[in-house]
């Protein structure tokens, strides 16, 4: 076990995959010289050279298409979209092409591409750099969507992503980069579609993703002092979704809260809540509570950007109300 930051976990895992498999390469804006905005690829250019650590021009569509094309012919690209907000420029390449080629070829071609990006608040960069757009991709057949919340999950899921022949979108979170955690030292992978119980509990199931997992854990801690025992479940992949894990938990606790940073309407909270309602209807004491970001552009500034998305306080309130 080593204790490391989420950011370092990205770098170490990427480096490991680059060493393991010659066909892996990293492409993205300033992933080389700068080693990524957060240092998530610092030093890799020096170790692997510019043929494998490719600084891309400011051309998100081309970079994405390039990754897809090269994946068709033996390469295993990790394409980094600096902020998820910029993925809007790459959507055609991803959605109309990359994720459809396997089916269109009747299974003859594979597109082993990893799209890495990061979303959410935390850098005080306001509304064009802080969005939570993950649910768009959950509705798209052909794509795996992973959102690791800890350094250990990041390592295991990123390894799985690089080694998968399916296209994978792995969404990091800017507020997670400098969080730290224990990471096993072996070459483990985490399969897609397997949720993780981040904290076992008995009175209520809190389903949360990405940075919201940390908020949920903080809430669980506060609530424990009040005698409320929360189970915090992190699905880790939004698609495929480990429905069984969610359902098993809620059948036990009989109460459920879903937390997302994205606004409720049209977001992933509706999907998670529906799965729980569909399969735990008899057991649920009350309907699933959704705790979601405000329906607003993310404002600038430390306090404001955090004030418009859920925190432990919001979650505690929701749990208290639900159990009242």
């Amino acid at each position: 076990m080593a204790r490391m930051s989420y950011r370092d976990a990205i770098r170490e895992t990427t480096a490991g995959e680059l060493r393991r498999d010659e066909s892996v390469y990293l492409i993205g804006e300033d992933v080389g010289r700068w080693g990524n905005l957060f240092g998530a690829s610092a030093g890799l250019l020096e170790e692997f050279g510019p043929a494998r650590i490719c600084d891309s021009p400011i051309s998100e569509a081309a970079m994405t298409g390039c990754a897809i094309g090269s994946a068709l012919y033996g390469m295993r690209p990790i394409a980094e979209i600096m902020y998820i907000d910029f993925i809007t420029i790459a959507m055609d390449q991803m959605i109309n092409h990359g994720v459809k080629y396997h089916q269109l070829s009747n299974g003859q071609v594979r597109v082993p591409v990893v799209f890495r990006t990061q979303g959410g608040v935390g850098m005080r960069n306001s509304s064009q750099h802080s969005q939570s757009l993950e649910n768009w991709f959950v509705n798209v057949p052909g794509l795996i969507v992973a959102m690791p919340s800890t350094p250990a999950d990041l390592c295991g899921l990123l390894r799985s992503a690089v080694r998968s022949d399916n296209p994978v979108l792995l969404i990091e979170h800017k507020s997670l980069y400098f969080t730290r955690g224990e990471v096993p030292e072996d070459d483990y992978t985490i399969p897609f579609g397997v949720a993780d119980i981040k904290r076992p509990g008995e009175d209520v199931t809190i389903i949360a993703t990405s940075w919201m997992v940390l908020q949920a854990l903080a809430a669980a801690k506060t609530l424990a002092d009040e005698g409320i025992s929360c189970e915090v479940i992190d699905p880790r992949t939004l698609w495929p979704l480990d429905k069984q894990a969610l359902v098993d938990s809620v059948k036990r606790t009989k109460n459920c809260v879903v937390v997302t940073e994205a606004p409720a309407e049209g977001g992933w909270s509706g999907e998670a809540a529906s799965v729980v309602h569909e399969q735990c209807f008899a057991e649920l004491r009350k309907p699933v509570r959704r705790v979601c970001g405000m329906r607003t552009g993310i404002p600038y500034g430390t306090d404001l950007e955090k004030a418009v998305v859920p925190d432990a306080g919001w979650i505690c309130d929701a749990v208290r109300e639900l159990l009242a």
Partner: protein
Amino acid sequence: MSDNEQLMELYQQLLVLRHFDEFCYDLKMKDLIMNGFHPYSGQEAVAVGVCSLLRGDDVVFSTHRPQGHSIAKGSNTRAVFCEMLGRRGGVSQGIGGPMQWIDKPHNFFCGSIVGSGLPIAAGVALAFKRQGLDSIAVCFFGDGASNTGAFHEGMNLAAIWDLPVLYICENNQYGEAMPVQEFVPVSRISQRASAYGLNGISVDGMDVEAVLNATTDAVAQLRAGNGPVFIEMITYRFRGHYGGDPEHTYRSREEIAVWRNRDPLLLARTRLLARGFSEETLDELESNVRAEMEEDMEWALEQPFPTVEQATDHVMIPLGQD
């Protein structure tokens, strides 16, 4: 200049593409091809000239108008007929349809989002370059596509990284009903190459030998590792944008007649006659090709449609096997 035998082969291919296309047109009129068919008649010299220079391991990316490129790249005409008809046995087993198929054995891809192939072709070329291969990627696209962001981003990427992509712009004078003069503010689309530090050239796309000559140099340059090449092929589509479109809204009969006088098949045939081939030989060749295409079509018309299970298979590689 190509020798007699070579020209004869090219002519045969032109005939294949033309008769294939015309049969498809009829199938479309009968609603047997259900939608998305875009005739290639008139542009055959481009596909035939370019693809005659390619190897099996070279990769072609095409557009919503892919049948000519696909066949010229080696796709089986029966399989392409089947795909047009949505039948099992099609290049994409009938689930992709007339503008979206992948023929992996022949390294052929196409798609119906205008301009999108340019970045992907650059990616294929990147793979070849990294792997030290001398295979190349060829990307066909239209005059209209040269106004897309993907064109610009893709071309720039290929240029700065010296990737072996042959960009072939088929300027057939229109993007749907949009005349190129009105939507592309340069007289030659090849001038756009200079925005990427490339030497673009414009070639008579009705003349298969002109296409061949220009492309021969380009392919040599690409295999030698000297970065992308941009060729504009000046051509014309004889039929509407899709089988049955309102052509009269944007072009005149006279204009069509002028271009039909420069039919690539006619040009090649005239040249073969001048080189001593007899009318009979050429007529016989044509009727053989036509008969063969008809037979392929008949065969395709007897193939079954895919089942829903087949059509929804392979959305992803099953987890655990991926």
